[in-house]
């Protein structure tokens, strides 16, 4: 694979002479590399979907073929871990995080961009610092605090708390509000509009793309999260899908006739919302991730 690097690296400008033999060969090599990559990335997804639909889900070579299909695995996983209940729990946890980030996070982003107050630089420094501290390293004391001191085990508030305001989204909102023309805000202030009104009537309508991106980024985190809800939910009725499916993966498999098929069905249900959102709003996902990544 490494031999292809120089060839493709050299032909970086899109205006390479495509008619020439070298240009055509470069394109063919590029396309071959991209196709190999796409197969490596997509095959597990294909295998997951086919496995979830087969009557017999085994690992032999014919198992990748879409034959002998059934919907039975989906009802099997529903019976084993009550899919609906798990989805509701995932949904409530994710919606809570989204609500907090879109309300409280937007307020913070707006204040950091457009309002003057003592300690604003300090708050911004905190915002940057928080994004570099790996949250997992604080799970143990957080667990002690939330479950023992606050008594929020098996409780939606306890599940939401650590993710409540997504700092990356706050950073994104701040950047977006900062790019808006200052004259707009000055005019509104001279007219005597309150800050809340300016935010609601002027800033938010203009910031829709940033709000969408922030919402998408924020959605992925709690929906996919495993460690924290796994720690704080011991009651099966409170577990989000990632946790109940992981439980099925590690010790419940014997309870259904085609355990691997049921597991794949559960994996499809867990993966689907994020994948669908991504396919619908692809542009909004990738762009900002890169921006915040490069700057962060």
């Amino acid at each position: 694979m490494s031999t292809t690097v120089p060839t493709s690296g050299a032909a970086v400008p899109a205006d390479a002479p495509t008619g020439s033999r070298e240009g055509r060969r470069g394109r063919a090599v590029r396309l071959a590399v991209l196709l190999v990559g796409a197969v490596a990335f997509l095959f597990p997804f294909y295998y997951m979907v086919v496995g979830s639909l087969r009557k017999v889900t085994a690992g032999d070579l014919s198992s990748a073929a879409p034959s002998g299909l059934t919907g039975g695995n989906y009802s099997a996983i529903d019976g084993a871990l009550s899919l609906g209940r798990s989805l509701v729990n995932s949904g409530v946890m994710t919606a809570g995080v989204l609500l907090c980030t879109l309300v409280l996070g937007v307020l913070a982003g707006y204040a950091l961009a457009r309002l003057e107050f003592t300690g604003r630089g300090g708050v911004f420094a905190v915002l940057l610092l928080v994004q570099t501290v790996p949250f997992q390293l604080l799970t143990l004391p957080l667990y002690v605090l939330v479950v023992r001191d606050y008594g929020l085990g098996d409780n939606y508030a306890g599940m939401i708390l650590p993710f409540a305001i997504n700092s990356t989204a706050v950073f994104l909102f701040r950047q977006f509000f900062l790019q808006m023309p200052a004259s707009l805000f000055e005019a509104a202030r001279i007219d005597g509009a309150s800050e809340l009104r300016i935010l609601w009537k002027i800033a938010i309508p203009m910031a829709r793309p940033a709000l969408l991106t922030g919402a998408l980024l924020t959605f992925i985190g709690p929906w996919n999260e495993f460690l924290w809800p796994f720690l704080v939910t011991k009651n099966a009725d409170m577990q989000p899908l990632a946790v109940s499916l992981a439980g099925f993966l590690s010790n419940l498999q014997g309870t259904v006739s085609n355990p691997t098929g049921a597991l794949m069905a559960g994996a499809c249900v867990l993966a689907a919302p994020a994948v669908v959102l991504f396919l619908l709003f692809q542009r909004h996902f990738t762009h900002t991730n890169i921006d915040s990544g490069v700057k962060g």
Partner: protein
Amino acid sequence: MTLTQSSPRAATTRPGAPAGRRRGHRRAGIGTLFVTPYLLYVLAVFAIPLGYTVWISFHRFYFTAPGAHAPSPWVGFANYRDVLTDPVVGRSFLNIGIFLVINVPLTVVLALVLATALNAKMPFRSFFRAAYYLPYITASVALVAVWQFLFGSDGLVNHALGGLAPDPSWLVNTHLAMPMIALFVTWKQLGFFVMLYLAALQNVGKDLYEAASVDGAGPVRKFWSITVPGVRPATTLVTVYAIVTGANLFSEPYLLTGGGGPDNSSTSPVLLMYQKGIEQGHPDFAAALGVVLVVLVLAVSLITRKLSERGN
């Protein structure tokens, strides 16, 4: 940070009209009010737990029922001594090393190859971008399930390999379990880094390539002398991310290799914090391990950034 100076309002209120100043004060109060919920959140989720974990790490600490309080005597560095002399902790740090040795070079090479291949007018370009990004946005639990199925003893990969299949199989093999975790994480996150390198490639001046062509530089020379230095900030970021990810591995060793097995060969510090702190009821040990880890992660990522800045 520099943008904090450029507030539009600073200029308008300075003339000192009493009304303006009063409004300025009111608005200053509003700014504080707007960031208060965020600050409370940071306090509850980062600052207090960070302080608490340091405190626990210097005490003998027991879990008690809500409301009940057991004495927590000061024990100095005893927990730290326990952590640093524990062979399993040593193994978990070695595992981060194995993870980094595999993950960083593989990510850099593959992401750079795919990003360069994508960086031109190509058919199905947005399809490829979407395909690469898909694992990055998908839940680990779902992907771990498929990988377990694919790489299980009786899985598709072993069937395809026939007699070449490793024995014991991938995920239950002492020598292969940790490399498999590294491979899984590389696969899951590669799309993010492809996009990162793609963005970095846009900043490499096209005129540099043209000038090099005029000077008679070949494709290999151009790649090493222009492309590689041009994307160095992205490469630094890959390294820093890999260190942070390695220190934070939990779902993968817990689910993919069945609790850090076999024989702790794929255990991770965060998994140990869970097993020691919550399963076995030694939160003080886990807290000390957490403090050691935070210090190490911050130090190593700081050093990496410094080194690469010097490299520029």
